[in-house]
C-alpha cells in the first residue's frame, strides 16, 4: 500500500528521473530525508540534485526563484507550512510578480506540509492556502487523496508558474492507496468525491475525509450529500461548484482554515454572486475556530472541524 507521504516522495522521484531541470532544496532533506521523510533516499538516488538548505526560508525561496529564471525547476520544501511566513516576501512579492512584471515565468514548487495534527500546536499546524491564494500570480493546490498528492505534485513541477503545494500532514500516513495513477484531472479542476441530491459540501485537504464521514452519517438518516473536493483553491473551479449547487440547492463550505477571508468565504461569495438563484436557503460554513491552533489534543480536536461538527451543520442546513 502506498501512503500519501510516499506518493509525494514518489512524485519527486519521478520528477527528478524525467526532468534534468528539477532539483530539491530544503532543510534536512538530503541524507536525512526530510523531517517527514518525504525525500528519503532521493539524495542517494540522485547525487547532486538534492540539497540541504540553511535555516533561511527567505533565502531558500529566493534561491529557487533565481534558479527558475535560469531555466531550472526547483522543488523547495518548507519544513512546516507555518515557517513559510519567513519566506513570504520572496513568494508573494518576487515569485508571484515575476511573470506579470517581466514576462519571464517562475516555475518553482513550494511544498508546504500543512494543517493540524494532534499535539502540533500553534506553529506546526497552520493552513496557509487562503493567504497565498490572496496574491495574484500563484497557483495554490490542496491534494486530498494519495492519487492527487502524486499526480498534482508531478503536474505542479511541469507548470510554468509558481505553485504552492499544500500537502496535509494529517493525511501523510493515514491515507493509503493500492496503486498510483499515471494521469488525473488537471490542476484547476475540482472533483465530485461523492454524489448526492440534498446538499453540496465544498471542501479540500484533510476536511474532505471528515466531510465524507459526515456524509456517511447523514446517509443513515436518509440525506444524500454531494461533496466537491476542490483539489486546487486557485484557480478555483467555480463551474463545478455552481453545477453541484444547481442540483442540490444547498451549500455547506468546510475548511480547516481560520474563517476570516478564507476559502469558505470565497466560495460562498462566488456562489452568492454568480448563483444566488440556485440557493434554496442561505449557505453555511464550518471553519476552524478563530484562535491560534491549540496544542492539547482535547483542545485541538474541538478547534478544527470534525465529522460530527460537519454533520451537525449539515443537519441544520438540510432542515432549514
Amino acid at each position, binding site marked *: 500500500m502506498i501512503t500519501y507521504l510516499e506518493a509525494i516522495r514518489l512524485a519527486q522521484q519521478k520528477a527528478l528521473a524525467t526532468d534534468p531541470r528539477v532539483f530539491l532544496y530544503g532543510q534536512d532533506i538530503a541524507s536525512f530525508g526530510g523531517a517527514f521523510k518525504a525525500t528519503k533516499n532521493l539524495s542517494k538516488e540522485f547525487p547532486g540534485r538534492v540539497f540541504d538548505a540553511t535555516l533561511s526560508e*527567505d533565502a531558500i525561496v529566493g534561491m529557487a526563484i*533565481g534558479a527558475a529564471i535560469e531555466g531550472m525547476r526547483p522543488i523547495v520544501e518548507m519544513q512546516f507550512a507555518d515557517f513559510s511566513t519567513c519566506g513570504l516576501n*520572496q513568494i508573494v512579492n518576487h515569485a508571484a510578480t515575476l511573470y506579470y512584471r517581466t514576462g519571464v515565468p517562475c516555475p518553482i514548487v513550494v511544498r508546504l506540509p500543512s494543517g493540524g495534527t494532534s499535539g502540533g500546536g500553534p506553529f506546526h499546524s497552520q493552513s496557509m492556502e487562503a493567504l497565498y491564494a490572496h496574491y495574484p500570480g500563484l497557483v495554490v493546490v490542496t491534494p486530498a487523496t494519495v492519487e492527487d498528492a502524486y499526480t498534482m505534485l508531478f503536474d505542479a513541477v511541469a507548470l510554468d508558474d509558481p505553485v504552492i503545494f499544500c500537502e496535509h500532514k494529517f493525511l501523510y500516513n493515514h491515507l493509503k492507496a493500492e496503486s498510483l495513477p499515471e494521469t488525473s484531472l488537471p490542476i484547476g479542476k475540482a472533483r465530485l468525491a461523492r454524489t448526492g441530491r440534498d446538499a453540496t459540501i465544498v471542501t479540500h485537504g484533510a476536511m474532505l475525509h471528515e466531510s465524507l464521514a459526515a456524509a456517511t452519517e447523514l446517509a443513515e438518516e436518509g440525506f444524500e450529500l454531494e461533496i466537491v473536493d476542490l483539489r486546487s483553491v486557485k*484557480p478555483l473551479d*467555480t463551474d463545478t461548484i455552481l453545477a453541484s449547487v444547481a442540483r442540490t440547492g444547498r451549500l455547506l463550505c468546510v475548511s480547516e482554515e481560520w474563517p476570516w477571508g478564507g476559502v469558505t468565504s470565497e466560495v460562498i461569495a462566488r456562489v452568492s454572486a454568480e448563483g444566488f438563484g440556485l440557493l434554496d436557503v442561505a449557505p453555511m460554513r464550518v471553519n476552524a475556530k478563530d484562535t491560534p491552533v491549540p496544542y492539547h489534543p482535547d483542545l485541538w480536536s474541538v478547534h478544527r472541524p470534525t465529522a460530527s461538527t460537519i454533520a451537525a451543520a449539515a443537519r441544520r442546513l438540510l432542515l432549514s
Partner: protein
Amino acid sequence: MPKTSAAVTQADYIKAYRIMLLSRVLEEKLASLYRAGMIKGGVFLGRGQEALSVSVGIHLHRGDIFAPLIRDQAGRLAFGDTVLDTLRTYLGSQLGSMRGRDGNIHRGRPRDGYYAMISHLGAMIPAVSGGLFARRLKGERGVVGATCIGDGGTSTGAFHEGLNAAAVEKLPLVVVIANNQYAYSTPNSRQYACADLLDKAAGYGVVGHKADGTNLLDCLQTLRRAVQNARGGGGPQLVVADLLRLVGHGEHDDGQYVDPKLKASPLGGDCLVIAEHHILEQKWATAEEHAVWRREVETEVNSTADRVRREPPPDPEEDDWAALSCPEYREQYATS
C-alpha cells in the same frame, strides 16, 4: 588581499568615466522630466555613486548575472541597459521592457542575466545566488553574479540569509554595499553598531574589500579584484564603498537632514567631478574633448527622451491582466 588583478588602464578609466557621464546626464534628464510632471511615481538617482556602480557593471561579462539596486544607473548602462529602455520604463512606454507594468528602477531583462529588482531590500541576494547555483548545476563555469545594496539594506533579514547561504554554497557572488551614510533619512549611527560594515565579511566567512566610493580608480581596481576573485573560485566577495548620497532619497526628497559636516568631508566629494579633474590633470583628454563628450550624451539623451515621449502608453484594454503564464488558467483566473 594581494593585488593580482590586471592594472586599470587609461582606456578602462575613460570608458568608465564616459558611462558615468552618460548616467549623470540621463539622470539629470529624469529629474527634469519628473519636475515637469511627465514621470509618474518616483525618480531615484545615483548621483555620487556612479564611480562605484559603473565599476560593478563594467567588470561583468555577457552571460554573468547582475541585479542592480536603485542608485545603479551607471552600472546598468555598463552592463548593457540602454538610455532608451531607461526612459521607456520611467515614462511608462508600452514598448519598454516592463510595458508599464512596473516602473523606474524596477526594470530588467531576466533572461539576459539582468534581474529586475523588487523593492524589498536584500531580496536580490538570494535570487542572484540561485541563478549562480543553477549555472553551476548546468555545468557552466566562470560565471559571476553581482548585486548592490546600501547601508540600510544590510539590516534586513534577507541580506543576512542571502549572504550566509551564498557563503555556504561558495557561490561566485559579489555583493556591493554603497555605504552612502543614510537609509532614506536614517543615519548610519541608527543603522548598525559594528565599527565598519566591512567587519561583516569575516562573520559570513567571505572575502571583504574596501573602496573609496568617490575615487573611480579605486572603485575600478577594487571591483576588478573582487569580480576576478569570485570568477576564479574564491567564493562570495563583499565590497564596501564609503561615499555620500548627493541627492535626496528620491526626487521628492530634498535631503535636508544630511549632516553638513559630511557634505564638507572627503566623503561628500562628487566622484564624477573628481574623475573629470583626474582625466584633465593626466592630460588624457582636453577640456574641449570633454565638452564634446558631454554634448554627445546630452544629444543622445534628449533625442531619445523626445522619441519616447511620443510612444504610446500601455493600453488597459489591450493588457491581458494575466498574472499566470499558463494559458489554460487565464479564463478561470480572470474571473477570480
